């Protein structure tokens, strides 16, 4: 069985539905490569799943006559793999799959496509982000990074952020999708009524790939479709139905429907309440309505509190009723028209700061160990002053970075800089320099130490003596044994 998503994947950029402006931007960027290496050598294509980002990248290569090097999530994508495939490819001229030799002098290039680039940076792919940054700076060939969550990638690398052109793909319209589905079902010789097409397009909510897969799954082996065939498809994508639920809760005033929508939702009341909380002011414009809606929400919250305290989950149903029915009926009049419901800010902030919070905790525990106190105390009482000192005093910075064995992420956190910026690199460079100076001043270094030298992180064994500066007075050395106090940094 051939997947229709592959069979009907557009081969040319012009054949992709919707997204006229992003496609034009992409083409303009590609054409700028014909006259040399443009300033922005990489493009970040962002947007929701299934709307044609990868297809656009491949179609672009086809239009331009470029050879594609694709690295997607199923390939190993640690720093080494990225460097050896994308990195090597980015520097040299090209042989195509057919064995033809292409030279950049004729404008023939490789297109390096890193699919799902926001997923590269898990534990197993460590270092991948830096490798990509490096490649972008040095590449002689165009690079496309494809992401769903641009934010996740951007915060890890200022190089990527600063050197890539971002192009956002939007969802194709329902009518575009309907047209596409109609054309394909015609080619496949399946008779599909208009209402079925419309329904398929609607439930895909912009995800062309999903729409096409749905169509194939119900149409394959038939020559005629009816409305009832659609029910064979299950529900899809809960995050989309949350918005739908918001609409029902805020805009219908129907108690039962509001309650049911919460029951069918794959969200527990704990997070549903955040959604409702965040969206009340957007939905209800009358201050009195806002007031009584929050009144209901606070009652719901009381139940949630009881659930948590007593671990009595049967109380959830009361909380749910309060936050759905209650809020739904709290309004004094109907609010019509389209309301833009938003993702709860609180959840967003928590998830965005997740990495930062993690770094902060580790930092806290490192401080705690050295200051003989609890992690909580270290974060509360020590970290603020520590951070201040760290920013102000260069010597202190170098010595504690070594003493606490700080990683680049942690140094970045302390300096309020991204881990790959020069601020952070500078710290490690300086440490290396100090090493070199102290070694040349000291007695003959043995072989092994020499080898370790390029890796500053590994060098920082806790039991190792802190580095001395040359100009330091002799007597200081004697104190070394007692220097277990964190703030005595020499």
């Amino acid at each position, binding site marked *: 069985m051939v997947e229709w998503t592959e069979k009907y994947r557009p081969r040319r950029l012009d054949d992709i539905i919707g997204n006229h402006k992003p496609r034009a931007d992409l083409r303009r960027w590609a054409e700028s490569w014909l006259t*040399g*290496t443009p300033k922005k050598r990489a493009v970040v294509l962002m947007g929701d799943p299934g709307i044609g980002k990868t297809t656009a990248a491949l179609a672009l290569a086809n239009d331009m006559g470029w*050879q594609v*090097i694709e690295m997607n999530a199923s390939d190993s994508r640690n720093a080494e793999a990225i460097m*050896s*495939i*994308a*990195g*090597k*490819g980015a*520097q*040299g*001229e*090209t*042989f*195509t*799959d*057919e*064995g*033809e*030799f292409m*030279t*950049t*002098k004729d404008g023939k290039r*490789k297109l390096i496509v890193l699919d799902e680039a926001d997923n590269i940076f898990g534990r197993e792919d460590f270092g991948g982000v830096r490798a990509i940054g490096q490649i972008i700076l040095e590449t*002689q060939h165009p690079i496309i990074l494809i992401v769903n969550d641009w934010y996740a990638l951007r915060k890890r690398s200022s190089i990527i952020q600063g050197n890539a052109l971002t192009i956002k793909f939007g969802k194709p319209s329902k009518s575009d999708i309907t047209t596409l589905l109609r054309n394909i079902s015609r080619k496949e010789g399946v008779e599909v009524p208009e209402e079925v097409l419309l329904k398929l397009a609607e439930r895909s909510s912009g995800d062309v790939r999903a729409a096409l897969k749905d169509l194939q799954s119900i149409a394959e082996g038939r020559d005629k479709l009816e409305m009832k065939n659609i029910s064979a498809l299950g529900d899809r994508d809960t995050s989309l139905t949350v918005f739908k639920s918001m609409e029902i809760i805020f805009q219908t005033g129907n108690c039962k429907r509001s309650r049911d929508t919460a029951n069918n939702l794959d969200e527990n009341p704990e997070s549903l309440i955040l959604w409702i909380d965040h969206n009340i002011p957007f939905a209800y414009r009358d201050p009195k309505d806002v007031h009584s809606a929050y009144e209901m929400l606070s009652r719901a919250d009381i139940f949630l509190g009881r659930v948590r305290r007593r671990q009595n989950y049967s109380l959830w149903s009361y909380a749910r009723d309060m936050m759905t029915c209650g809020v739904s009926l709290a309004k004094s009049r109907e609010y019509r028209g389209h309301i833009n419901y938003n993702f709860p800010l609180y959840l967003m902030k928590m998830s965005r700061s997740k990495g930062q919070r993690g770094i902060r905790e580790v930092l806290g525990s490192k401080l705690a160990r050295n200051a003989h106190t609890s992690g909580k105390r270290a974060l509360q009482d020590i970290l603020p002053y520590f951070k201040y000192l760290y920013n102000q005093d260069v010597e202190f910075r170098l010595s504690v970075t070594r003493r606490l064995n700080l990683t680049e992420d942690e140094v970045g956190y302390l300096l309020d800089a991204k881990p790959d910026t020069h601020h952070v690199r500078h710290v490690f460079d300086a440490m290396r320099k100090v090493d070199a100076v102290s070694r040349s001043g000291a007695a003959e270094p043995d072989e092994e130490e020499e080898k370790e030298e390029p890796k500053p992180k590994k060098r920082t064994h806790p039991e190792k003596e802190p580095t001395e500066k040359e100009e330091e007075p002799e007597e200081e050395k004697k104190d070394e044994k007692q220097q277990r106090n964190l703030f005595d940094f020499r």
Partner: protein
Amino acid sequence: MFKAKVRPEVLKEVVDVVSTTVDETKITATKTGISIKAVDPAHVAMIDLTLSKGGFEEYKADDVALGVDMDKIKEVLRLAKPGDMIYMEHDEERNRLVFKVGNITRKMSLVDTTGMSEPKVPNLNLPVKIVVKTDEIRQGIRASESVSDHIALVANPEGFEMISEGDTDSVNLKLGKDLLEELKCKEETRSLFPLDYFSSIFKTISTASVVTMHMGSDYPVKLEFSIANEKGAVVYLLAPRIESE
């Protein structure tokens, strides 16, 4: 159908050469021998290896394409003791390649070849031809490796040079006409190449004492050498590094 008996050294040579370029490949077997053509994942290098029937102790095949994983063959090679023979047979029913080494039978499932390309060696206009002792080039590579990660190949009517320039140091291997087996060059040409590719392919040229290089200016280099006591031949193409504009 594919059935063969081969000495481990020969198979090892083939595997070593091919794995400089790809991890998985398609082996095309015909009545007269096998051939492997592949482009590396970075699309910078290309290989075309042929091993005639005579390179095998016994050989029998109809046209068949076998998708193999080089690492798996290396595992088989590790099982072979000196003097052992390796027997290979294609199990068409289950699409496996069955190896026999000593008393061990290793059944290897084959890789799907449908997605694999079959590149043809391109027709390149390479005006320079040099035949040189492999050892000389290896020496030059060894010297360059500590200095830089790329290497320039320069040819002129007087001789051949390998130049590697790092930030602070440089290495230069100069072979005059008299030190080359053959030199055909009308005017000077120069191309820059990634050293690691160059180095890894030269490490595999074990039995061939000389290698033929065809070159141009900012153009690929084409290496030709023999394997398996002249029973096989390799053509290796490496694309030049793009020098920054």
